[in-house]
């Protein structure tokens, strides 16, 4: 359904020295720097799949989405979606896709919400019956009824996001691009939106690409994830696999008589660990150690701690996916390992 091959996107950036002097200097002598926003990315998505696209801020997620939706032209490489090249014949291509940019809106700001839908109906040339059915369906999953007659500018963020999602699907697109669809929303609305996405995916076999910073979105929605960092693809596979590959970590949380006791311990030499297998976080009240349990068993760890420190309280926890991702972003886990 979606084929992305060796896609690159470079931006030219003006380099300026600091301050007024720098600004004046750059008026006469412009220096450019090439930024590789997306650097040689390839992946495929099958029909009906929900792909989670994750990465830190500035990793190149949005740039990639913009290339997939035909807004930006790749510097190099090919994108093919449903047999079409997005930047060629944009008008024909966008009829088949739906897009939500969580930080922007496609709704008509000054008009009642329902007007936006009728505008979209004409733009996409949806016939009356299909439109009625569609609105019924969207109303049901996204609960638009309560505010469908209000001007868009009066909607709350949660309402607006639901409306935006509905607007992106009015023409039953084959592919849906959701760029941070849950940004800034409360838990209830997030759940509502996730349910809607799942339902649409199941009922219509819509292919969905989703970017998000909320890893609960990923856990509930995506079978597969692609992770990029600094424009490069660093992971492509299932969530479970990622947890297995990077996440066999456990975390020990404890309070000690004196937190400084932990400094005296030498895990690296005692257990012959590498630096990346363990990290220690110390505050006045608490110490937390996360470690790779393939290299060091929990029993050994606890025994060692009990013997060498005065523990007031201790607990062992699973490391959640957010921390795995942090770890990857922080480059503490090397992928080539």
């Amino acid at each position, binding site marked *: 359904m979606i084929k992305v091959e060796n896609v690159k996107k470079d931006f030219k950036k003006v380099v300026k020295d600091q301050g007024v002097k720098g600004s004046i200097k750059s008026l006469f002598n412009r220096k450019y720097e090439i930024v590789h926003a997306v650097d040689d990315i390839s992946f495929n998505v099958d029909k009906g799949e929900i792909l989670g696209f994750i990465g830190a801020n500035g990793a190149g997620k949005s740039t990639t989405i913009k290339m997939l939706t035909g807004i930006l032209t790749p510097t190099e490489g090919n994108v093919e979606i449903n047999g079409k090249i997005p930047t060629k014949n944009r008008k024909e291509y966008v009829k088949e896709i739906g897009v939500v*940019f969580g930080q922007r809106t496609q709704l008509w700001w000054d008009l009642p919400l329902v007007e936006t839908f009728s505008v979209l109906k004409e733009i996409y040339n949806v016939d009356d019956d299909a439109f009625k059915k569609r609105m019924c369906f969207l109303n049901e999953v996204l609960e638009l009824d309560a505010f469908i007659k209000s001007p868009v500018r009066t909607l709350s963020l949660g309402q607006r996001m639901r409306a935006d999602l509905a607007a992106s699907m009015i023409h039953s697109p084959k592919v849906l691009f959701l760029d941070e669809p849950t940004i800034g929303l409360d838990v209830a609305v997030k759940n509502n939106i996730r349910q809607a996405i799942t339902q649409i995916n199941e009922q219509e076999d819509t292919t969905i690409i989703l970017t998000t910073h909320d890893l609960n979105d990923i856990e509930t929605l995506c079978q597969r994830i692609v992770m990029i960092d600094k424009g490069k693809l660093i992971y492509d596979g299932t969530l479970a696999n990622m947890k297995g590959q990077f996440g066999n970590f456990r975390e020990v949380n404890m309070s000690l008589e004196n937190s400084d006791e932990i400094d005296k311990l030498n895990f690296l030499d005692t257990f012959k660990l590498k630096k990346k297998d363990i990290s220690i976080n110390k505050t006045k009240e608490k110490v937390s150690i996360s470690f790779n349990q393939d290299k060091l068993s929990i029993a050994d760890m606890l025994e060692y701690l009990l013997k060498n420190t005065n523990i007031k309280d201790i607990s062992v926890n699973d490391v959640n996916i957010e921390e795995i991702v942090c770890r990857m972003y922080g480059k503490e886990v090397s992928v080539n390992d």
Partner: protein
Amino acid sequence: MTKLKKILKIYKPFTKAGLQSAMAYRTNFTFFVIGESLYCFVLYFIWKAVFASGGSNTFMGFSITDITVYVFLSNIVKFLIDTDSTVSMAEEIKDGSIIMRMIKPVNIDHSLLTFELGNKIMMIFCIFLPVMLGLEIYRYVILGKIAFNIFSFLLFSLSVVLGYLLSFYLNLIFGYLAFFLLNIWGFSILKGAILNFLSGATIPLAFFPGAVRAVLEQLPFASLVYAPTMIYMGKLSTNQILFTLLKQIIWLIVFVLISDFIWIKAQKRLEVQGG
């Protein structure tokens, strides 16, 4: 024909939405009208003083009645052909919201244009028609006969439509500059001043010295305000009218082509800022 019908069907909602948006900001609109009317009266009194001090009844073929009609008519035309396309386009490029237009199966320029038409419809009914009626009454009172000519009015309307389209594309081209400059505030102020002067909205081009006037009349700016106003006032012969309309059409084609060309180039340069 069916293709045209389809296009109209797609863009009709834009016009409707534009009209509704314009109505949502009625108060804004009212104050705008009051402000602009004041400006017209200021111009009118200035010209009156000029004529009074000149001691002559006509100046370069314009009587005081002519200049009064010119002041109000040219300003009405100025509103009708005025367009936000520079600012809208530049803003959308600057804040990146142009991408919301690009993900829809519509032409960027057509969607902007048809949206603005909604605003124009409101303007025609709320300002244009009342002022035209007022001007005709004024002419009737002064001249003692009905000066209205339906034929001139139709040619005038055609000329205004061409002038508006020309103005839209000219301004759109300025808007596209934002792709290269990212902030075009200074440019658009300069552009406004030049347009006001060269289009005849401030001073009739007929008042300029012969050579300057001959050049100015050929420039695209004259097609914006001066041409339709002169047609309505019956200052041009039939041949001159046809020539004027032809000029407008040629300039319009030139500007549409330039704007299409820039859009194709600019699209490749598009760097969406933020988000």
